[in-house]
């Protein structure tokens, strides 16, 4: 048969020479190799203390956005749920009542908004579909859990912190995604 690569070599079956049979040169060679590795820089990243730098297009956990006054952007139009190829998003719409203007930006809002993180494939199509800049994918990933039902993230888990009440947490959650797909 024709060799597939040019790397094949005939096995050397010559008996060991005296120098090879005393093993010591080979052992010392091996020890020097392991010693070199001993002093080599370790590629491990100490995970909880240090994290890898994320790519700017990394798609992690979803965040439901608010505007500068802390009103929810989402109008429960359902475009994200339609766009979702994994059918992970469920929502229920409700009408804004008088006196709730400081909570919701428009007349309609999502009373219930759930994403099943076990179904989600983090494709980011919901983010692309959203006309209101209400949902985007952050730089964190879904933490592990003991129960499946814990992976159905409700609105409480997804909403970004209030920008006026908790400005620091808001900034942290926003990360460097701030205004990435701002409606112009």
């Amino acid at each position, binding site marked *: 048969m024709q060799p597939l690569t040019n790397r094949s070599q005939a096995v050397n079956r010559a008996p060991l020479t005296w120098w090879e049979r005393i093993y010591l040169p080979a*052992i010392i060679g*091996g*020890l020097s*190799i*392991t*010693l070199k*590795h*001993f*002093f*080599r820089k*370790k*590629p*491990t990243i*100490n995970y909880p203390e240090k994290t890898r730098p994320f790519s700017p297009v990394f798609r992690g956990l979803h965040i439901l956005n608010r505007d500068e006054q802390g009103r929810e952007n989402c109008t429960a139009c359902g475009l994200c749920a339609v766009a979702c190829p994994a059918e992970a998003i469920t929502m229920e719409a409700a009408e804004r009542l008088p006196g709730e203007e400081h909570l919701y930006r428009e007349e309609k809002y999502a009373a219930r908004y759930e994403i099943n993180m076990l179904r989600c494939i983090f494709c980011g199509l919901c983010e692309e579909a959203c006309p209101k800049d209400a949902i985007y994918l952050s730089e964190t990933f879904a933490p592990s859990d003991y129960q499946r039902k814990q992976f159905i993230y409700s609105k409480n888990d997804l909403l970004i912190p209030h920008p006026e009440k908790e400005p620091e947490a808001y900034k942290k959650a926003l990360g460097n995604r701030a205004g990435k797909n701002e409606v112009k």
Partner: protein
Amino acid sequence: MFLSIDLIYILEKLILIVIIVSISMVVAMYTTLAERKVAAFIQDRRGPNRAGPFGLLQPLADGLKLFFKEEIIPMFSNKFLFVLGPGLAMLTALMTSAVIPWGSKLELFGREISLQIADINIGILYVFGVVSLGVYGIIVGSWSSNNKYSLMGGLRAASQIISYELALGISLIALLMVTGTLSLKEMVLQQQEGYWNIVYQPLGFFLFLVCTFAECNRTPFDLPEAENELIGGYHTEYSSMKLGFYLFAEYINMFISSAVMATLFFGGYDIPFLDESTLPVNVAGVLGIVALFLKIAFFLFLFIWVRWTIPRFRYDQLMGLGWKVLLPLALLNMFLTGAAILFFDK
């Protein structure tokens, strides 16, 4: 008639025993950490670094874990021997530390305290007697487990230690011909005045080193426990702290063997290129202890370094090496040493 017994002398020795035994334990504990760290570094990993700074509390965590594990004694085992095994291994591992001179002497409370528990004139023979008893811990444990893999491990341990003790003993005889004494203290004093014994006995030291690896059941001679052929060998059936005792005894053996090698061939507590008699007694004593422990640390590192470099021997290769290579070399070394002593009339 009164027997005048110096009570303070007994107290002093008792304190010394407690200190040395606890130091052996602590060093063995941290050798397990060093083993994991060095293994990790050699394999480009970081090793345990979660328990305490740099993982310094890891040995404590490991020990606690072993204590809390369920303890299983197999139904068809001989219970008395099964419990005796690890105890025996631990006892013999700790007993050897009695004759090693850990330092010259200290002057405390107006008394001169020798840093050696017992300066007996047959010191090195005592070490060998106890070390060869050490294999009983393994054999008793493996036999009483009533498990074929354990028994295989025990058999291997027995035949391996017998084979290598021969070469070990003969390489030592050549050293004894040079020093003319069996007392470890005197050997150190000789090396303090003259040169270290490694200068006279390079081949003897090398044979001694290889045989020590075999005696401690360390890779490449770890056939008694060969985890991938014998499922753990002699300690297959052991769990909880009884297993811990076996593993721990191995590290104590390594520590004591390193101390013996440093004492026999590398001047013990002697500091090279320094005349200790010019220093105050206590300073010289403390520096001597530090020097000895640095030498021991080097040998412990060597043990670990070799373990993570060299694969295990096949059993016939092990026997071939022991009987066909090391034993003739040891005999040759003894012959050459004798001839040199005759020729130079030393």
